[in-house]
């Protein structure tokens, strides 16, 4: 019962304004018992990492639908590592072609959740990864 609640930062990197998915995921994680902070739109990698450190989160979940994932996801992972927070679990979602996924995983993104992923899969994945 006294188990620490998982803390998650849901972030929207870049200029993309599509936040339906990010907010739905945020709500599902919250309903799944996690503490969730949502950054809002137009966050630079620096802003995301500084929010992650300040909120002391276990997970950073990012959503991009504009195609800028190849640039911005790895930047967030690298900055987290530089700041000594390389153990934070980083996951992503959005319109991300399958062929881009190996490079993102190589860069340190633990998992990519594509369109059609049931909410429960994301909740379960995070819980299993952190236990």
């Amino acid at each position: 019962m006294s188990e620490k609640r998982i803390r998650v930062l849901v972030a929207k990197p870049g200029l993309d304004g599509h936040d339906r998915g990010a907010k739905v995921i945020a709500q599902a994680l919250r309903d799944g018992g996690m503490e969730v902070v949502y950054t809002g739109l137009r966050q630079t990698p620096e802003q995301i990492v500084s929010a992650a450190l300040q909120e002391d989160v276990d997970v950073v979940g990012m959503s991009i639908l504009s195609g800028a994932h190849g640039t911005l996801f790895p930047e967030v992972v690298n900055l987290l590592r530089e700041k000594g927070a390389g153990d934070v679990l980083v996951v992503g979602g959005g319109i991300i072609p399958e062929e881009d996924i190996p490079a993102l995983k190589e860069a340190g993104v633990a998992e990519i959740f594509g369109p059609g992923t049931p909410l429960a899969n994301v909740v379960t994945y995070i819980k299993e990864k952190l236990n």
Partner: protein
Amino acid sequence: MFKQDQLDKIAANKEKWAAKLEATMKKRPERQPEFAVDSGVTINTVYTPLDLADRDYEQDLGLPGEYPFTRGVQPNLYRGRLWTMRQYAGFGSAEETNQRFRYLLEQGQTGLSCAFDLPTQIGYDSDHQLARGEIGKVGVAIDSLADMETLFDQIPLGKVSTSMTINAPAGVLLAMYIACAEKQGFKKSEINGTIQNDVIKEYICRGTYILPPEPSMRLISNIFEYCSKEIPQWNTISISGYHIREAGATAAQEIAFTLADGIAYVDAAIKSGLDVDNFGPRLSFFFNAHLNFLEEVAKFRAARRVWAKIMRERFGAKNPRSWTLRFHTQTAGVSLTAQQPMVNIMRTAFEALSAVLGGTQSLHTNSYDEALALPCDESVMIALRTQQVIGYEIGVCDLVDPLGGSYYIESLTNALEEKCMDYINKIDALGGAVKAIEYMQKEIHNSAYQYQLAIDNKKKTVIGVNSFQMEEKPPEGLLKVDLSVGERQVEKLKKLKAGRDQAKVESLLKAIREAAESDANLIPVFIDAVKEYVTLGEICGVLRDVFGEYKQQIVF
């Protein structure tokens, strides 16, 4: 609409029938405990004249082209001319987008629709720090008139109509379009097209805002005023429900929030001193065509009726053209699946058909691969062909409003009108759309969450996602915009900036600052500046400096 003795007979018969129905349901139980549309209207087993008993044909429907325009904005609609087939396109550099435009025109498309990349939509030049990774990704990158000239190379702007999905910096892009057309040898008055120019929905759900509401509304009123005098055929705004729906709203919320935004623009323009009948006829709308086919048809009809009443009764517009709600439609991007993508062709076709049966003025059909990436040439062609099949092969364009008079369609049109008015009254009570942004965001988010839960628990069937799944090979041949586009664009911009007369640029930016600080109309100074290749980022930089930037409230 029906005589009382007829209704009595039907009612008596229906009572007997209800007993029969009950007996049948014992043997053949229904597939689900309740049938309803997402907007929250329960669907009965069957509809009859009894459902329209309190309605008046003349008052509620009338004839096409007549108030309240439920049946359409023109008397003969597609018997005269089909809707404009307008595929939204734009990616990478201006050269690449120019090629896609020319390909679409060669395939029989009848109007252009331009997508801009995010830095352009947010008023940043490609060399801005925040443009990293975004250049040319979701649309074409336009930094200056030079890019616009390349974009429309060999496309005569006096002969095609162009819709530009640009909002916060709409005035600047319009200025570039005018300058470009004039360079091609056309008069301002000859150009025809639309700018989206709908900033309230950017605050609500689309995200490409720049300035706070007050200066944004002023810029919009400046555009209304300028266009009514100089480019009378231009659609000065496309008040958009599309993105509101994509963000999760129901059909009723989509039309309600859109029309509430419309009310805010009309209010602002009237407050700035304009006459409603001066700009009213040039207002246009943009809706989504989603999966619930009959609900969508009813939605378009309800929206037309509500807007006609708002313009005539609330704003006292006298010109019948101010009463008409003309709209563009795009099929629902959110209904596309990454799984079994070819199935998206069918989804899109039914959605497109609902827009045509709802009387749309122009249409974009999504391509089957858009849940995966930007569409490729082949998928765009099939999307366009879908419209051509509806327009030329299946006979639905041979009369106006073919579903009008269906007991269900009319009943649902009435129900959606009622729901829409309930929301508009709530928004009025909150002080109007600008004050109700967070209220609308909450409503939209709740609907989006419910929608996802319904898919996850299989109350809603999505083929390939929660039902009828199969093993699939990863898709091939997806369109990709590589990072070199951004590098080349930055290089091009650097050269452009180096080749200008800097003193002239400074003085044009100063003129913009002075106009912004006064009550002057900003469009003429934008035109002067873009003609000298002052960039979008430079102009928006001045506006940011004078007016400050919008800060989003985080609602979830």
